[in-house]
């Protein structure tokens, strides 16, 4: 086994998408972890004398490399601190969404019958329901909050996991080794937990990676609309929204946070694609 795994790993290293990883490190991961240390300014501090300062090379100074917004806050520092929210929300949301979706997908695929029909119809309904509208409705009731964003993320992504996991469970439960476990006296719980779930790990990991991009865009959309994490937290979507009225005169306010979103989602998707090709070629169509 050792050799087999090693050679597989080496093979993956050979195809390792270096550029997306480097971009992700620079834009998302390092700022998210070390924003307090590396950000040049306090993201909340308004330098009122330096309002709407353009970025370096566009008439700005090295003091504010990406310029400042209309309150004179440093855009670079705000993007760096915003990375933390993008990362935390996508991780927490995807982990919770994956747990919910996987559990319900397993139950649907294994139990079959009425439970399966019920769960899969709920999935259909969540896909049919416009998530933004739901978020707006909920926000108008409870006000925007971190919990609300997580809830909407789970709501949007659990169905993908449930569908895929159910489909693969349907195949796995008919496999001989599951039949063999059953005739050896294994309980349903044991079969799910020792025979079906371990064979689904690749699928779940790949699916989770492919969902990161979706979640980051979703979070940015919610904060852009003002129903994400409440102000004054520098979430990326909020930063884009901040520059909306000044887009003609001070384009940098919206442009750089937008670039951060773009680069992150693009890199995550490229990374997810290579991971999928390596771990689970079956998922090509997803």
């Amino acid at each position: 086994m050792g050799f087999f795994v090693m050679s597989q790993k080496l093979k993956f290293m050979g195809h390792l998408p270096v550029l997306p990883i480097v971009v992700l490190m620079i834009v998302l991961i390092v700022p998210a972890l070390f924003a307090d240390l590396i950000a040049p300014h306090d993201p909340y501090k308004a330098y009122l004398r330096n309002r709407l300062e353009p970025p370096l090379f566009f008439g700005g100074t090295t003091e504010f490399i990406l310029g400042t917004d209309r309150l004179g806050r440093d855009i670079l520092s705000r993007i760096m601190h915003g990375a933390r929210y993008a990362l935390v929300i996508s991780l927490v949301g995807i982990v919770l969404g994956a747990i919910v979706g996987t559990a319900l997908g397993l139950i649907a695929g294994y139990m079959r019958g009425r439970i399966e029909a019920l769960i899969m119809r709920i999935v259909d309904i969540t896909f049919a329901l416009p998530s933004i509208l739901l978020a707006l409705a909920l926000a108008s009731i409870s006000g925007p909050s971190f919990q609300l964003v997580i809830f909407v993320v789970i709501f949007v992504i659990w169905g993908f996991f449930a569908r895929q996991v159910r489909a693969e469970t349907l195949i796995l439960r008919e496999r001989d080794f599951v039949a063999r476990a059953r005739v050896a006296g294994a309980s349903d719980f044991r079969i799910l937990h020792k025979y079906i779930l371990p064979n689904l790990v690749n699928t779940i990991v790949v699916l989770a990676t492919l969902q990161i991009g979706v979640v980051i865009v979703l979070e940015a959309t919610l904060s852009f609309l003002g129903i994400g994490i409440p102000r004054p937290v520098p979430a990326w979507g909020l930063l884009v929204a901040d520059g909306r009225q000044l887009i003609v005169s001070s384009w940098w306010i919206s442009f750089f946070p937008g670039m951060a979103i773009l680069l992150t989602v693009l890199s995550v998707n490229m990374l997810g694609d290579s991971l999928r090709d390596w771990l689970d070629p079956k998922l090509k169509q997803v």
Partner: protein
Amino acid sequence: MGETILQVKNLCTVLDLSSGTVPVVNDVSFDVGVGETLGIVGESGSGKSMTALSIMQVLPKPIGRIASGQILLEGTDLVGMSNQQMGQIRGREIGMILQDPHTSLNPVFTVGNQVIEALEINNPGTARKTLRAHAIDALKKVNVADAERRIDAYPHQMSGGMKQRVVGAIAIAGAPKVIIADEPTTALDVTIQLQYLQLLRDIQDETGTAIIFITHDLGIVANLCHRLVVMYGGKIVESGTVADVFGAPSHPYTEALLKSVPSVDQKLDRLYAIDGQPPALISDRVGCSFAPRCPYALDICRNQVPQESDALSGAKSHRASCWNMERTT
């Protein structure tokens, strides 16, 4: 042959398909004693695997169900037991070996892990270390060479014969009183087949388990089994000791099966094959289900289902269901 351990009485199993209810096992009765090997013979679709799945009660959900009959394990009826109660029977009382060793093991765990798991189900609460030692013993018992090292191998690193031995080790981990082997050698090559049959015989000599051996290979039946039942279209058409049935095959289907086994002493241009197809179980045919393919069929065969009666050998245990055992046409 000791006392009867497993008795199947008038078992009827059906599949509820959208096109109707199909009887796949139709009024099947047989029994097997301690230390005895019973062969169940028949072509694909004759209901032999469905009989095995009925005994284990792992019929395809949700379409398969036992419609009527009894399955008595040491006098206790298994039919109607809850899934939880059957969980106590499977593995501990009745073990099963499936056909294809390449797919019967979980690809993501080592074989040792899977043997240990089977031991753990049967002896909950035993220390992991003890279980591992037991697993090595179990692998040695099924002649896995170098068991101390092989225990950490993954299924894909083993040959088919080795994997089937591991499956055997898992099946006997709970020291079952009955082992159902559903064509366990079909996926193995011939030399390994013989070794595996010898292994089953050794296990039986040592533990006295009853074996129900499902196969379509009459050579194996002659070699391994004490008695056999021949199934056709979900029914038992003939049953008896191996000597009686092979000596005086009384149902034309048994006769045809025996004829289609090539022999080294005879020169043949063409292998013998039974004309026609196995019966569609859903059709509402009256009479004997083998009649359309039977060279000896009479009018009565097409109109009335034959009753079980004494067969040609005259032995008390040898029974067959045929209107025309004397072969008048």
